[in-house]
């Protein structure tokens, strides 16, 4: 089916499958359509349907509350039933050649293990090599759970066939309940994946200091950024500061990896664990002498530590929406950081 997307600056025309969302068809055609979460929550991919008919399998999608007109749709949810024409509110361009379009793939859950209270690390083996940029995510859909969920890749390597993710248990989270309720039974289960997605990416060509501020499972994408930067020797030239926020000392994870990373690059890499609900434990301080520990909300701890240096760095944010909002406010209002020096993908 032919789909026309008219943006403020120009129109685009591409072939779309009725089995795929307008967003996926457009991204695959190399068009940088507006999106962030790709899972129906953020509302960024809003478009106005001018002609044609679409299927909307999830009319209760939270992102729909951002729609204004009856004929407005979320491109990440809707697939075409006929040729159609939509308008997006803004400018759109062809994607750069370096951006990999998302692909569908099948995968099998190979491992799943608790690494902290309410945090599970799991690995998926994919049927095709999965190329992505550090900081990107994939959507995962499993039989029995309605709708795909988005998770950032923790590992980074070219042509990876094994992808690592972390997930936090949420009381009413469909996928997280499904996984947590019977961890052992989930190993061997087949899943559908779409990716890579996400624009909060790190390339060494960035050539500037980096700051990562993450809370809870938001640390996932930062691990891929750290991995890539270390593999490339990036911290021999530039500085990296990672701030990882958790509630209590017992909630922290990946600390062995962080400790090793700082041991390798002691001059230019700093990792600070911020605990919001209690002072960091002495046991933790003693066990990880290379890491810094601070009590407080992670974005406040980060700002106290880096202050005006944030203005010249590239800052990556990930975590629960209140953390991302708080960090944005602090960076823009207090540290006067330009928005084009902040990268994050919205998931609220």
């Amino acid at each position, binding site marked *: 089916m032919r789909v*026309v997307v*008219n*943006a*403020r*600056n*120009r*129109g685009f*025309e591409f072939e779309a499958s009725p089995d795929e969302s307008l967003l996926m068809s457009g991204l695959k055609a190399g068009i940088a359509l507006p999106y962030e979460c790709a899972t129906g929550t953020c*509302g*960024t991919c*809003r478009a106005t349907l*001018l002609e044609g008919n679409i299927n909307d399998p999830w009319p209760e999608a939270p992102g729909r509350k*951002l729609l*204004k007109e009856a004929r407005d749709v979320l491109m990440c949810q809707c697939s075409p039933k006929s040729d159609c*024409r939509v*308008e997006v*509110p*803004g*400018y759109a*361009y*062809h994607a750069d050649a370096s951006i990999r379009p998302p692909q569908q793939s099948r995968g099998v859950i190979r491992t799943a293990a608790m690494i902290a209270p309410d945090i599970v690390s799991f690995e998926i083996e994919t049927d095709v090599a999965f190329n992505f940029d550090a900081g990107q995510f994939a959507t995962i859909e499993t039989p029995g759970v309605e709708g795909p969920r988005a998770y950032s890749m923790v590992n980074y390597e070219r042509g990876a066939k094994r992808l690592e993710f972390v997930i936090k248990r949420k009381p009413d989270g469909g996928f997280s309940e499904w996984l947590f309720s019977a961890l052992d039974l989930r190993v061997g289960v087949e899943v559908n994946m779409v990716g890579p997605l996400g624009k909060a990416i790190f390339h060494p060509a960035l050539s500037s200091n980096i700051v990562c501020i993450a809370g809870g499972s938001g640390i996932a994408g930062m691990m891929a950024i750290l991995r890539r930067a270390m593999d490339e020797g990036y911290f021999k030239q530039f500085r990296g500061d990672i701030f990882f926020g958790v509630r209590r000392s017992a909630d922290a994870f990946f600390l062995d990896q962080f400790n090793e990373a700082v041991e390798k690059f002691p001059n230019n890499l700093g990792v600070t664990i911020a605990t919001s609900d209690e002072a960091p434990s002495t046991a933790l301080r003693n066990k990880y002498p290379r890491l810094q520990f601070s009590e407080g909300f992670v974005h406040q701890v980060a700002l106290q530590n880096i202050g005006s240096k944030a203005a010249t760095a590239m800052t990556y944010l990930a975590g629960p929406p209140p953390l991302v*909002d708080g960090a*944005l*406010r602090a960076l*823009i*209002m207090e540290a006067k950081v*330009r*928005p*084009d020096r*902040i990268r994050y993908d*919205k998931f609220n």
Partner: protein
Amino acid sequence: MTKTFICKTQEVPENGMRGFDLNGKRILILRSNNQVFASDGICPHQEVLLEEGLFDGKVLTCHSHLWQWNVCNGDAIGLAETPLDTYQVSVVDDSVYIEQRSILELCAIFSGLALDLLARIESAGQYVNFSAGEAIYDEGVLAKDIYILDTGRVEFIVDRGDRIIYSGYVHNRGEMFGWATLMESNATRLAKATCTEAARVLKIPGESLQQLFDEVPTAGLLVTRRLWIEAVRQLAGAKHGNQ
């Protein structure tokens, strides 16, 4: 233009902002160091409420995708792709009044011209209403007028016979189109302009504008320089593959 009462000064926190409803339109009133500013209360990008954003006394940031504007004049900063509609503000006895700026003040090619000249340009034209689906002009016809959008939405279509090429649209108050009329030779329309929503536009005969610029050449030169920017932008768009 009439002044409209919005609120009492003290209803807006000092060094803060607050949104008000005015006949179904959201208006944002901002206060900073004894100055009061007013703008549209809705982000022109994804239509979120700007009162939920950030304001540091000079720069307003939408929390959704971090578009920023200078609240003094609505100029786009950084990531913002379009300016923000701002209002003239007057404060009398703690009462805040706003006055809508003329659409020519918002129009990029006329910005910086004296207000009396803008008034003359406006009076040389006339406001015309179009209904949804109606064409303002067809491709290939002689370009006689320049148009400035007041309300509604207009899209541009090139018909290549075997296929139709969509070439963007205008949606913001003060956006200009149909500028081929300002070319020296008898230029024709490169695309058909159709209203995708009922629209109100200011239609100014190119001839009247030319006469005015012959009379005030400095203004003519300024507008011509601005037109170059517009032309280059459209060429860049064509290069990036209007197929």
